[in-house]
């Protein structure tokens, strides 16, 4: 068996031969014990290497890469998962928060006027400067960027799920809400001082992005995954 024969047999074991060449070589194996032995050796080595467990990937490695890759431009998106489980299943996780928020005033600023077609009509009627009856906070995340602080809450009402943003910023800033991968905003909230916005979410929506826009430039983003689990 010459070197080329060995390389052909290796290619056969690796599945790198075309069908005709592979078949021709297989037929030769019956009459060439040395070639057949090489097939067995290469196959055994492949199985041995495959039998060793793979190294586990450090669970925080992706986050570390993203931090290192994006920090220089200060535009790294971070991600939070907000569950929209039924209210009764969420309650134990919110004991540290004010449970009195189960019935609260949602002051809506500009949403109905800016995006009347996107609003759930029933909820929009309820929202503008009025009470959200039986609204309960079923998920929450925080956004913090320089002087901008925002609490992002999921509100459960009979009309469905809404996103409430309560924001505070010393300098004027725009919070832009959009679907991931989309450049067109679902809604926006101009913030100087304390502001609040409630926006009804489609039931099919699985995630949203909140962009912090200052002087026309996106300076930070926060991704919110709306987990159904």
């Amino acid at each position: 068996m010459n070197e080329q024969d060995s390389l052909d047999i290796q290619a056969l074991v690796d599945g790198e031969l075309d069908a005709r060449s592979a078949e021709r070589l297989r037929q030769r194996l019956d009459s060439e014990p040395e070639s057949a032995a090489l097939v067995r050796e290469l196959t055994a080595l492949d199985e041995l290497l495959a039998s060793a467990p793979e190294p586990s990937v450090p669970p925080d490695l992706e986050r570390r890469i993203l931090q290192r890759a994006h920090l220089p431009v200060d535009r790294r998106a971070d991600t939070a998962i907000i569950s929209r489980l039924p209210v009764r299943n969420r309650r134990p996780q919110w004991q540290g928060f004010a449970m009195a928020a189960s019935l609260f005033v949602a002051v809506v600023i500009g949403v109905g006027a800016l995006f009347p077609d996107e609003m759930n009509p029933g909820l929009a009627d309820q929202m503008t400067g009025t009470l959200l009856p039986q609204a309960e906070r079923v998920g929450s995340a925080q956004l913090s960027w320089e002087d901008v602080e925002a609490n992002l809450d999921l509100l459960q009402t009979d009309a469905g799920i809404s996103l409430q943003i309560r924001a505070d910023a010393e300098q004027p800033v725009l919070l832009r809400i959009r679907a991931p991968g989309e450049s067109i905003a679902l809604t926006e909230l101009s913030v100087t001082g304390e502001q609040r916005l409630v926006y009804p979410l489609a039931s099919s929506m699985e995630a949203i992005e909140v962009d912090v826009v200052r002087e026309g430039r996106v300076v930070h983003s926060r991704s919110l995954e709306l987990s159904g689990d």
Partner: protein
Amino acid sequence: MGKEMERARDGQLVQRGLQGDRQALEALVNHYHGAIFKLAYRMLGNREDAADVTQTTFLKAFENLGSYNPEFKFFSWIYRIAINEALNTRRRASGTEHLDQPVPDQRDGPELASRHDELKTQIQVALMLLTDEHRAVITLRHYSECSYSEMAAILKLEEKTVRSRLFEARRKLQAVLQSAGVTAS
């Protein structure tokens, strides 16, 4: 997802990344950080070094994204960066290298887990006894499941050179494993 679909997806992500879409870059990290880490680990035998190489690989890839030629596969390009980074790390650490102790994995029961850990260590030790060139082809073929043409693209070698180098590497690895009494059973 097939390799052609991956190629199309990666091409789109790179284009979006070049236009400043950070989500596209994050998607590339999400798709490839695990594979790059495992490749680096096989090349280095040390988790911390492998994690450092993985991070550096993505930083270099993003810094040089404009030089990526979309006619080639993105993974070939980034794997090449990773291998070069791993080799640089090896050269810098020459004389001080150490292999990780296996992290116990009890999912298969203590006895089998112990056997798996032992096998993992023995194979990694055997890999580290190969030359960098031989370890690279073994790793790409057996653990990254690259084809000959993909290995040629990653290592910038002719395919016939890959074939002969892989054969030599397997022979040497087999000899090392046999001398250590390592078998799959």
